[in-house]
């Protein structure tokens, strides 16, 4: 299954990259970076969702639904209001750590989700207000940020975020057995030398900071983080050494595909990529919630 997905990812990557007019300048400087960002973004969101669901023992947890992503976007926007992308990134990471401090307290699942709804609503409104302070004519940018649009970035940015994503992924893979044991139970994991609260905070901080990078870059992308791990666990396996890489690949493929559609459907104009991922995944989200209705 992993091999098939990797092949599919490469194939789609090539297709989306070289589709249309092959022109080496466009391919190297625009399409490769953009497709890579889309792939890493989708993959990281799915990875974060998988980890959130395990360590919070809440099948509906993911950064977007819990309001973490919205809160991070708010931090980023405040930074941007101060006219500096760097401050935006720093503030979004700070807001990410703040969110981890809150979610690792583990409210009852329902409360946590409802607080997430509140935080999301507040953050999105605040982001729109802040953007209109920034520049009343930038409303379009603010709206696309709240849906998720993949930007064109330089190859250096791509290299840096690829490296960070790879390191986080590697770290989580090395600790996947601890995640397995936590998914069985806290007390059960203890006897294997796992420290549940430390494990929880470490993996939440790593995935949330990863989320912060992509929220700052792309915006709020919903449902990938929630639905993709469910698909993998349902179809294939719940063992984390498989769940993490498969979720990453599948999430990446889905979001890269959404971005492709976003560029192509109303060509030469463009729709935010988040529109298509939500369009595809929110019915599945409803399906997941429906399946869990007895829990």
């Amino acid at each position, binding site marked *: 299954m992993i091999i098939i997905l990797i092949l599919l990812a490469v194939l789609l990557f090539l297709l989306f990259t070289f589709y249309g007019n092959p022109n080496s300048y466009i391919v190297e400087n625009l399409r490769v970076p953009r497709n890579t960002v889309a792939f890493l973004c989708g993959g990281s969101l799915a990875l974060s969702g998988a980890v959130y669901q395990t360590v919070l023992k809440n*099948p509906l947890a993911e950064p977007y639904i819990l309001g973490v992503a919205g809160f991070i976007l708010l931090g980023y926007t405040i930074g941007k209001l101060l006219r500096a992308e760097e401050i935006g990134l720093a503030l979004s990471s700070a807001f990410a750590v703040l969110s981890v401090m809150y979610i690792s307290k583990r409210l009852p699942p329902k409360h946590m989700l409802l607080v997430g709804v509140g935080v999301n609503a507040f953050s999105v409104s605040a982001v729109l207000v802040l953007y209109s302070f920034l520049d009343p004519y930038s409303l379009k940018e603010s709206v696309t940020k709240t849906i998720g649009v993949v930007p064109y970035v330089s190859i250096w940015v791509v290299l840096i975020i690829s490296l960070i994503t790879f390191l986080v992924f590697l770290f989580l893979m090395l600790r996947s057995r601890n995640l397995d044991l936590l998914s069985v139970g806290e007390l059960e994991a203890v*006897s294997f*030398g796992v420290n549940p609260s430390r494990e929880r905070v470490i993996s939440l901080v790593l995935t949330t900071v990863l989320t912060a990078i992509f929220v700052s870059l792309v915006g709020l992308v919903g449902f990938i983080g929630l639905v993709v791990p469910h698909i993998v*666990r349902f179809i294939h396996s*719940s063992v984390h050494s498989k769940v993490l890489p498969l979720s990453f690949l599948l999430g990446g493929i889905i979001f890269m595909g959404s971005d492709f559609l976003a560029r192509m459907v109303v060509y030469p104009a463009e729709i935010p990529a988040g529109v298509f991922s939500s369009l595809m995944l929110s019915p599945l989200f409803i399906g997941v919630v429906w399946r869990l209705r007895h*829990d």
Partner: protein
Amino acid sequence: MIEVYNLYVRKGEKEVLNGVSMEVDRGETVVLIGENGSGKTTLIRAITGLEDYKGEIYIDGVEPEKGGKEKISVLSQDFNPMAYLKVSEIIGFCDSVDEEVIKELGLNGIFSSRIGNLSGGERRRVGIGFALMNDRPYIILDEPTANLDISYINRLISLLRRKVEEGKGLLIATHDLIFGREVGDRFVFLRDGKVAYITNEEGFNYACTKVFGTNMYTEVMKRCV
């Protein structure tokens, strides 16, 4: 040996454990008995290092946090793994696979089922299997008989006896007096976070009467009639 001396655990305003001392040796079964809220689960969580405590806990001379907890295999009171996990995957996380445990607990028939599709009793059997198949010198089971039907309780008793013969130390929390009386070598009665009695079989009924206001035989008779 698991040694607990003068253990205090406070949760908010309430002193949940109030100076508890007890011990569990290898090759014996100690049964922890008490009403709901008497502190059984808190004591177990403290021994596994999940609860902040005052007092002393040593497992073979080592504090839980310094590695003592890794000598214990535990079944928690609310064993509830993630719904998508398959029984076979959970068994796969164990140190070793014990065919007899799998057979006795009837796990063969549900091997490829997901936790979310199991009944309460089936889930309990998976949890017991997980605790028994990890090769640790001590096994702690919190309410192992919850949701189990009588045929599995009997098989569980014989499995536990075998583990004791292998030289493991067992600590079992239960409020099922009949089951507790049958598996236990020694009995620790908890009341309001204190040890009310520590006794062997001979004092069991006396302690039951004092703690619960009824004894096992009266309860058996009532159920029979």
